[in-house]
């Protein structure tokens, strides 16, 4: 049923334009609903993408990429803050949610209608829209050497499909694809949403949901329509979908006094990066990141390749800079790889009480995470040495290089020094888990927040638990399912 916006109110307000928000906006606008999308970041043209890392951090990343997760082991975390959200700065890797993960969601959280079969049409839809495909041509060198290592070890590995057909190896995934190959939301979904009638306000940050009894009546937001001129505005809405991402969605809800199982269960994939130096030229800074992931040890541990520029290389080497800085001269023979583990630690998200509207993230690395990272490093280093790497440089203080297999396998029996770990992550989720178990979840199986009549969450925050793979596919499929359900049931 079509419910266009009245003169004073918005029908459906979508907060956030990332993988969840964009799909929600498209589906509901296509169904004739009056949709308004609020996006904190700016709208960028393709020509503005692909600038250097420093410029991209300022333009495209939340707090210029300075959103660390605190805890006994601090973890670097980044997410997008621009039209399209993190889909503009990720690698475009695409995974369907593994069957095992969905079954666990059902058994642990009583998540309904989320079987592989139920989600298949939504994955099909998203993959078609995003032109998800394999590379279909020769691999870049950083992928080829990784493949060589996998083969030497006899492990299972696979090329990961990407939402980046026609990728031109410009090595700009993390700075916005200027070629338009990567199908971020600003390119693949939001233009169609706008054509279907959705309105998008960029530079508009939601500060607080306005509530009355058990309904959300609108949002208090700050908008910057001219540089340096910010206004506080109120937007009234009949239905609100909060899709501000795994950290900002719970922060916004908690700031608004909505705290029931909100922000209590931050889950991440902690990553440990390594750099490998090969005897041959890799020129990883001039090609797309390695496209293969090792699934031999999944779901606990995944191995893959990371974004590489000389600046990022220097950062990775800087943990042991006194001994490794001389290696910068060999940067053309180097590539970056990672160990990612399915985090089992506890974390939470809290809006900052002090100062401006910032968000505080905390994650306590579990013992299991620690073991998996140690094992993962052992295996990744072994693989890279088998692939021909002369040296492997982990981002761990006190372990500048691994040159021999024997040095690598020791980490199968020993633990990496906790205080020396330099961990990062780009995957966060589960801060507003969905499911029918009200003792564990913030919202029902379709994202409607418990105890609220017209409030929904529809982004990575809704994943009940860590998916163990890149979450974009799961987020888009669930978001579309939820949006269609809303369309069918909301009056």
């Amino acid at each position, binding site marked *: 049923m079509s419910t266009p916006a009245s003169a004073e109110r918005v029908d459906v307000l979508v907060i956030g334009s990332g993988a969840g928000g964009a799909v929600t906006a498209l589906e509901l606008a296509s169904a004739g609903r009056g949709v308004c999308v609020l996006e904190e970041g700016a709208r960028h043209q393709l020509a503005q993408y692909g600038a250097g890392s420093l410029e991209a951090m300022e333009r495209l990343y939340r707090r210029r990429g300075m959103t660390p997760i605190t805890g006994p082991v601090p973890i670097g975390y980044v997410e997008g803050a621009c039209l399209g959200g993190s889909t503009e700065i990720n690698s475009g890797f695409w995974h369907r949610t593994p069957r095992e993960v969905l079954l666990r969601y059902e058994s642990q959280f009583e998540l309904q209608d989320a079987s592989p079969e139920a989600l298949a049409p939504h994955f099909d839809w998203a993959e078609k829209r995003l032109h998800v495909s394999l590379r279909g041509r020769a*691999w870049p*060198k950083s992928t080829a050497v990784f493949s060589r290592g996998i083969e030497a070890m006899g492990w299972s590995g696979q090329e990961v499909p990407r939402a980046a057909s026609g990728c031109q190896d410009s090595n700009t995934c993390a700075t916005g694809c200027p070629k338009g190959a990567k199908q971020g939301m600003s390119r693949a979904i939001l233009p169609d949403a706008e054509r279907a009638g959705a309105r998008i306000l960029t530079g508009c940050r939601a500060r607080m949901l306005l509530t009355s009894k058990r309904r959300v009546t609108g949002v208090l937001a700050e908008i910057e329509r001219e540089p340096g001129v910010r206004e*506080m505005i109120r937007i009234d809405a009949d239905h609100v979908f909060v899709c501000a991402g795994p950290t900002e969605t719970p922060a916004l809800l908690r700031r608004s006094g909505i705290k029931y199982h909100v922000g209590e269960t931050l889950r991440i994939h902690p990553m440990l990066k390594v750099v490998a130096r090969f005897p041959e030229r890799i020129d990883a800074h001039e090609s797309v990141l390695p496209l293969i992931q090792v699934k031999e040890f999944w779901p606990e541990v995944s191995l893959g390749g990371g974004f590489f520029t000389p600046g990022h*290389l220097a950062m990775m080497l800087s943990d042991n800079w006194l001994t490794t800085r001389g290696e910068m001269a060999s940067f053309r023979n180097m590539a970056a790889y990672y160990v990612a583990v399915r985090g089992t630690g506890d974390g939470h998200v809290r809006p900052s009480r002090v100062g401006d509207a910032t968000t505080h993230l905390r994650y306590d690395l579990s013992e299991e995470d620690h073991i998996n990272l140690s094992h993962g490093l052992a295996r990744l280093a072994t693989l890279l040495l088998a692939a021909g790497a002369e040296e492997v440089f982990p981002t761990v203080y006190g372990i500048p290089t691994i040159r021999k297999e024997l040095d690598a396998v020791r980490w199968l029996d020993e633990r990496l020094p906790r205080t020396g770990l330099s961990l990062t992550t780009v995957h966060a989720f589960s801060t507003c888990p969905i499911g029918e178990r009200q003792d564990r979840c913030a919202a029902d199986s379709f994202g409607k927040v418990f105890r609220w009549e017209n409030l929904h969450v529809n982004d990575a925050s809704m994943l009940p638990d860590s998916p163990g793979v890149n979450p974009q596919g799961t987020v888009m499929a669930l978001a579309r399912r939820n949006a269609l359900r809303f369309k069918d049931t909301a009056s």
Partner: protein
Amino acid sequence: MPSPRSQRAVIVLLGALGSAVFLYLAARRLDFAAVAATWKTARPLPWVAFAVVCYVAGQLVRGLRLRVLVRRETALPWLTATNIVVIGYASNNVFPARLGELVRAGVLVERTGMPFGEALTITFIERLLDGMAILVVLVGAAAFSLHADTIDQVAKLAAVIFGGALLVVVVGVFVPNVLLGAASRLTAPLGAKWRDRALRITTHIINGGACLRDPRTALAVSLLSLVVWALEASMFVCVLPAFGIALRFPLGALAMSVTNLGILVPSTPGYIGPFHYFCQQTLMTQGIPSTQALAYAVLVHLAFYVPVTAWGAAAILRYGVEVGRTVAAARAARTAPASKTVDGVPVHFIAHVEPAHGAAGPGELMVALAEAFLPPCEPRAAREVAAFMEGQIAALPPSLRTMFHLGMTFFRFAVRVRHVSSFCGMPIERRRAVVDAWAFGRIALLRQLFRPVRSLAVLAYYERPEVVRALAPADSRPRLAVVGGK
């Protein structure tokens, strides 16, 4: 509800009543012949001139403080800021019920374009700082004076009033979201119109107090407030010898602080009555005869009243400000929020928000750190890297940013103690050795402190095209190597 006119009449009457009561209290049982004799033997010059100089200096420092308080919003010239302060004081001398504070906020609106509510908040913060500074002066002066129960009671009452107000300001400044959330929830049952109003006022309060979130600004305005009231105390001190009273700073400071706290009670314009009563009573507690004390109070009041009123009148004439117009502007700023459409979306305007401020240029420490982490490079490159580092550190969440700055303050202090030299002033090789010892040493906490700057420095440096070119000269760069090839 009474009309505005009758409200004004009540205010004026209450003020007049207050003044009459305090004048009576000050003059009862007074020997007027003795007062006249005291005046005849008084030697106002040069002491009154010195007092006026101190008072004018105090107003200039007040102007400087206002300038610091509004500098996030606008660059206000010092003289203009001082004139705004003086207009406020002069108006308080002319209008009842401290309406001068509103006039001052109105002139601030007119001079800067900031919303009225924000200007009023800044005025309120100034008054709060004044109150706290006066309390400090009072406690300090009382320590060197004769004990008096009256002064103790005044100090306790002031501590409660200003302490409570300080608590509200601290909440508004440091936990703005709590204040905003409370305003939203408390006014939700009243409907959108009243909630919008509450949110607008709250936003203005938060904006007005935002300047105090920067510890350096907070420290600066606190110190300036102490200077202001030390100068005002000096004014009181300067007048003492005019009546043959010994030139004692604690006595003048005590009279100043009790008098200024006393004139918070309603009175006629210019605080006639309470000013004289509290000033006289304070001096009497220190053994000064009542006639001499009252004569002193009258002279101090003149030194306090006449110059600032004249200066304020001149400032008003100079700016061409009519009080009525200012009030009208203030009213306009308080009009109900307008509904409008932004890119086709219906929105309701609540308030202007304090604009986001980018990081300033790189500080000396950041440049010194960048140079210590990087290979030898051009000063321009080091400065650009440092500017990036500064911007990134400024983007950290406030709690982490504060921890970082505290850590760096400790680092600088420790370096100065250990090496008897400032870190920034060290030769580059020594600086490198110090940074290497801290950033790559055995203490994990210190490594964590340096981790962000270390990572940011090398990231920014090795992202520079000329650095990459130097690492891999163009002639040695083959085309993208691939396996196989299509």
